[in-house]
């Protein structure tokens, strides 16, 4: 980018397995108030199967981040 650009440093940061799990846990806690373990337990049990992802505040944020920890 040309011109008199200020010094915003943009980086791509690659997480380790543990860092990815920790980030997903923080997202779950921030958005849904539950741990990643609890969220995944409910997810795998089908508790969200009939849920409109837009009807639960924060659920879209969590589901969008799922590839951090799972190949889905």
């Amino acid at each position, binding site marked *: *980018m*040309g*011109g*008199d*650009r*200020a*010094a*915003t*440093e*943009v*980086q*791509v*940061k*690659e*997480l380790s*397995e543990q*860092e*990815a799990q920790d*980030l997903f846990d*923080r*997202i779950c806690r*921030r*958005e849904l108030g539950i741990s990643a373990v609890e969220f995944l337990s409910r*997810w795998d049990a089908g508790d*969200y*199967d*009939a*849920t*409109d*992802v*837009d*009807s639960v505040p924060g659920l*879209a*944020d969590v*589901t*969008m*981040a*799922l*590839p*951090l*920890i799972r*190949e*889905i």
Partner: protein
Amino acid sequence: MPGRNPHEAVVAFLDPLVDALAVLDGHVQLIVHKRGGYRKGVPYVWILNGEEGMSLRGVGRLRATMQFMVIDCDPATNDGGHPLRVTTLGYNYKIIDVHDQDIIRFHWHPRGHAKNPHPHVHARPNLDAHFYMPRVTLETVIRGCLELGAPLTVDAAEAVRHLAVTEAPHVLYRSWADWPPGAEEPFRTSGR
């Protein structure tokens, strides 16, 4: 945004996004987890600055998350003759005010439980309503931040020009713009 291998394709995909975000003044990191190395056909996600998103001084915050996957492409369709490119699987952008209240959410989540194949927006005053609209690029969202007065690293005119340049590869190589293949236009039926 093609590449010779999955890693190259992802780098070519992320580079314009990183470049676009550089017009916003503040800490910017695209966080990814490639699980040992990018592979074709596997979903990945990038997240802007983790769970808190990017602070926009005087405006609030920008949160951005995008799912993506490396797929085959026709080498004849790009100058390098490369066989792989990245396709977007979904996105979730939102601009949040200084009181931590969402101003606007840009959603496209066509996969998984309660999937919705259509890109849509939730905006004040009714964040529950779905405003269906064509696919929204990250550059469009950044232009929205600019409109709201987000601090920039360049003047506004230069930012707009720059965003047009970074958006160009996506516009050139994307396979759809309005409605995803196979998804009927919202509210339109064969009888209308």
